[in-house]
């Protein structure tokens, strides 16, 4: 069966709107910010099923050496900025035309790359150029990406240049060059086509309940997923739930170039969303680690990229003995903007002992 479109949703919302507020003709024309279903009531302080699911259009996917980039877009929607432990809700403005999303991943390992610096420059049919520096974001469908609501201008064809300065995140394996890379795309801005994008209004009995919608079948979503605990690539010390997130902590004699010494062990903490297993980047983690009956480490865990573990937080611990226990603290919540369904989770993290 064909999925319902956003057009169908708007038509339904429009008739309800007119019935509910007679005399408010033109409501939808001037108040485009209302073109989203309301937020679910009683959102839990946890990952929840959002009010709706959106289709999106892909402008293209490009690869340059070790870096791959996809540009997708959909209609503008609300999201939340995160600073420290606070969220700042961003509503759709009347002039916003699209929500632009850029995904960046390691073309060789498939691992999504948080911490990139991304700039989107678009040139419209009238020749006018503007640019936007999107926020690092997390969505249940897309995983980790960079996005923002954008006012484009007139309908027509847009040339888009995405400039990516790759992250300098520590890597367990070889580190590719971090020189800036540019990816060229073009997209057609057509309001009517946007309204034909799929739009699923999630029923009241499901929206707002604990859970998540499924990730889409896309490289960014796959590349955002941390390996499940039961197939974790290194020995699992333990798993825990904290702050609405899942934590898997593993240890290895060495991991790539890290912990290569005889008296060193690599400890990796993988912090991920429940349900979809998306990595939670840009948090601050620390740990104490016990081995041989004594504490052998008390310090920060450093963000790191690994071909199999993906984005995680790790430390080289000075011991050759088996790790017996660890306590992991999330000192600063993941500083990543959130799409609906993630904005109430991942803020208060009790220490996790494993």
């Amino acid at each position: 069966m064909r999925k319902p479109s956003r057009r169908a949703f708007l038509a339904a919302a429009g008739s309800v709107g007119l019935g509910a507020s007679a005399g408010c003709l033109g409501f939808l024309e001037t108040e485009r910010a209302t073109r989203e279903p309301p937020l679910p009531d009683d959102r839990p302080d946890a990952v929840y099923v959002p009010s709706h699911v959106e289709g999106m259009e892909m402008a293209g996917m490009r690869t340059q050496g070790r870096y791959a980039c996809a540009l997708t877009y959909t209609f503008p929607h609300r999201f939340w900025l995160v600073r420290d432990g606070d969220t700042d809700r961003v509503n759709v403005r009347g002039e916003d035309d699209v929500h632009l999303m850029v995904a960046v991943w390691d073309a060789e390992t498939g691992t999504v790359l948080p911490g990139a610096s991304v700039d989107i420059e678009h040139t419209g049919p009238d020749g006018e150029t503007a640019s936007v520096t999107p926020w690092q974001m997390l969505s249940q469908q897309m995983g980790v990406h960079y996005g923002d609501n954008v006012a484009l201008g007139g309908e027509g064809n847009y040339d888009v240049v995405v400039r990516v300065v790759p992250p300098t995140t520590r890597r367990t394996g070889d580190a590719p060059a971090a020189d800036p890379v540019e990816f060229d795309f073009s997209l057609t801005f057509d309001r009517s086509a946007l309204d034909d994008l799929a739009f699923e209004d999630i029923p009241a009995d499901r929206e707002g309940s604990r859970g998540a919608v499924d990730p889409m079948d896309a490289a960014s979503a796959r590349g955002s997923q941390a390996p499940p605990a039961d197939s974790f690539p290194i020995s699992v010390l333990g798993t825990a739930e904290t702050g609405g997130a899942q934590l898997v902590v593993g240890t290895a004699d060495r991991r790539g170039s890290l912990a290569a010494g005889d008296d060193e062990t690599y400890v990796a903490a993988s912090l991920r969303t429940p349900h979809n297993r998306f990595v939670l980047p840009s948090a601050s983690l620390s740990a104490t680690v016990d081995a041989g009956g004594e504490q052998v480490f008390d310090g920060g865990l450093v963000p790191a990229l690994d071909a199999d573990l993906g984005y995680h937080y790790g430390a080289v611990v000075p011991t050759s003995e088996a790790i017996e226990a660890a306590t992991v603290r999330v000192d600063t919540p993941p500083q990543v903007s959130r799409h609906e369904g993630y904005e109430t989770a991942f803020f208060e993290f009790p220490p996790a002992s494993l």
Partner: protein
Amino acid sequence: MLPDSRGVSRRAFLKSAVAIGGASALAACMDREDADVPGGVDDPATLPERQHAWNDVLSRDDAGNALPPRHHALVHLDLDADGAPSGDARESVEAALRSLERAYERSNDGLLFTISYSPAYFERFDAALPESVDLPEPEPLSALEDPALDEPDALLHLASDHASAVLEAEEAVHGNRDTANGVDVTGALTDAFSVADRRSGFVGEGLPADNQDTDGVPDSEPVSEDAPLYMGFKSDFEKSQATEDRVTIQSGPFAGGATQHVSHIDLNLTQWYEQDDRESRVAQMFCPAHADSGAVEGSGENLGDSPQLDDCGDPVETGGERGVVGHGQKLQRVREDGRPVILRRDFDSTDGGHAGVHFLALQREIADFERTREAMNATDVSGQTPVGRTQNNGIRQYLSVTHRGNYLLPPRSSRALPTPEGDDA
């Protein structure tokens, strides 16, 4: 082309005149402004040796902060002749500059100006600059930027509270006027130079608000009337500026001069004004502790002569605990005797139809600027904390550097086409 002046507010009109420049802008501007601009000195030799000694002749606000002149032009000049400049060229340049000094009082109410020279200019000579001058070629100063590198031979900076004075002085040095402010003009910079580029801008209460109908500022007119700069906050506190002594070259043939870095930065303020709330803006511009305590009222006038960043804490610590670090807080790390090592004389702009900043900074050595910029990049903070390289990293998210240039601002006595040995005519 000038827009039809009818129906345009006086201040908006004056600003756009400087942005447009030229004789017709000046003519219309003089009619509108009708300013009584004080005249200059009979004997320019009595003027200070430091071209950049402006603080003594600037207006001050109630807290004692020096207020920059409101209107600015930056004229990029290329020498017409190849090789080392001739004595004739030097004489014309000096005569043109002295004409300005006789025509206008040396103050924000009259005219303030400097002329400076690029590393490319000094390559015309066989001799190298002395070791007492640190003037490298401009280069990108962060991994995230890809600026055009400005290399005109010389840069003339004109500044005044009167738009008409900036425009008239510019016309005079271009050889397009016989008089300036009623005083005869002799010599012209255009006897030796051609104009390679022209940039302009403004700073001070009301002007950013009047000029917010430009790309980079959202349509909601978010820039408040009391804001001296587009981002809404005061930045030229006395205590967050280097002293003129600190930026002055102390020895060698250019003693009494300074180095000057001028960058142009595009501002993208949609997120700043439409997505960030005020608390976030304060946290990013000053520091999270200021946001917590509500230390900043309005544009920050209440802070007096200092942004009061002493209690903001160590940026790495704040970044680790809060995930966000303030712009001022980061720069607090580059201080000597409690003061920064650069003297900012920056101003906003609508050049290119886009909100921007001409970030003009004076310092003894370009290296002083570079380490200040390094502190702003804060790669140690982004490397060790959840703070991103741009995101939540002061105001880096909203800035995009488009141009950079380095210049030597010689002392007044060797300002006319100096040799690397500092010789004048």
